[in-house]
C-alpha cells in the first residue's frame, strides 16, 4: 500500500520536508509509521496524528491511499 505524509510546523523543520509519499508499506498503525520515520532521530516533542484530516490516536490502522499528517499541538487563535 501507499500513503501520503504531511509535516507541519516544528515537525516539518525536523524532517526537512513538508510532504513525502511512502510506497510498498505494510499495514501498520499511524504511531508505528511515526516511529519508523523518526527511528534515527532523538525526538523530545509532542506529536499529533491526523489521518484524512481527522485527529486519530496512535493505534489508528492505516489504509491504502491515506493522507497522514504529523504536527505539534496547535497554537492558532
Amino acid at each position: 500500500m501507499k500513503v501520503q505524509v504531511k509535516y507541519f510546523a516544528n515537525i516539518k523543520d525536523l524532517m526537512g520536508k513538508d510532504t513525502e509519499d511512502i510506497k510498498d508499506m505494510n499495514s501498520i498503525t499511524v504511531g508505528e509509521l511515526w516511529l519508523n520515520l523518526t527511528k534515527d532521530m532523538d525526538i523530545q516533542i509532542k506529536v499529533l496524528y491526523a489521518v484524512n484530516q481527522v485527529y486519530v490516536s496512535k493505534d489508528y490502522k492505516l489504509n491504502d491511499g491515506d493522507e497522514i499528517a504529523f504536527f505539534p499541538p496547535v497554537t492558532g487563535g
Partner: protein
Amino acid sequence: MKIEIIDDKFDPWQSLVDYKKNELQNDPKIGASSIFLGTMRDFNEDYDVDAMHLEHYPGMTEKYLENIVQTAIKKYKLIGGLVIHRVGLLEPTDPIVLVATWSDHRDSSFSATRDIMESLKSEAPFWKKESTDKGFRWVQPVDKTESSNEIQ
C-alpha cells in the same frame, strides 16, 4: 455560517458589517451579537515580538472550523456564525482571528462565541512562529492539559 482563512490583513468591523448585511440581511430577530477579536501583541512571555508567521493545514483547518461553528449553531440555536482566521506573515496589532455569533438573546451568543474560540484554540490546525529579539521560535501552547495523542 461563514469560515474564512485569509492571508492578507483584514478589517474585522467591515467583515462584520458585510456578513450581517449580506448573509443575515440585518435580520430584525437578532437581539445579541457577541464578538471576539484576537490581535497580535508585540510581546509573548519574556520575548519582544516584531513579526509572526501563521502556518495552517489547508483543508483540515476549514473542516474543523466548519464543524466547530456548526456545532455551536445547533447547540445555541444561533442566527449566524462567522470565523475569519489570518495566516501568513503578521505584524503587531494585526487582527489574527475574528469570531462572531448572532442570536436572539445574549446568553446563547456569549456562550457560543466563547465555545468556538476554545475549540478553535485546541483543535484547529494553526501554528504560530514568532520572530523575537532572541530569534525565531515556534509558539508553545499555554494550556498544559491541551489534548494530545501522545507525548514522545
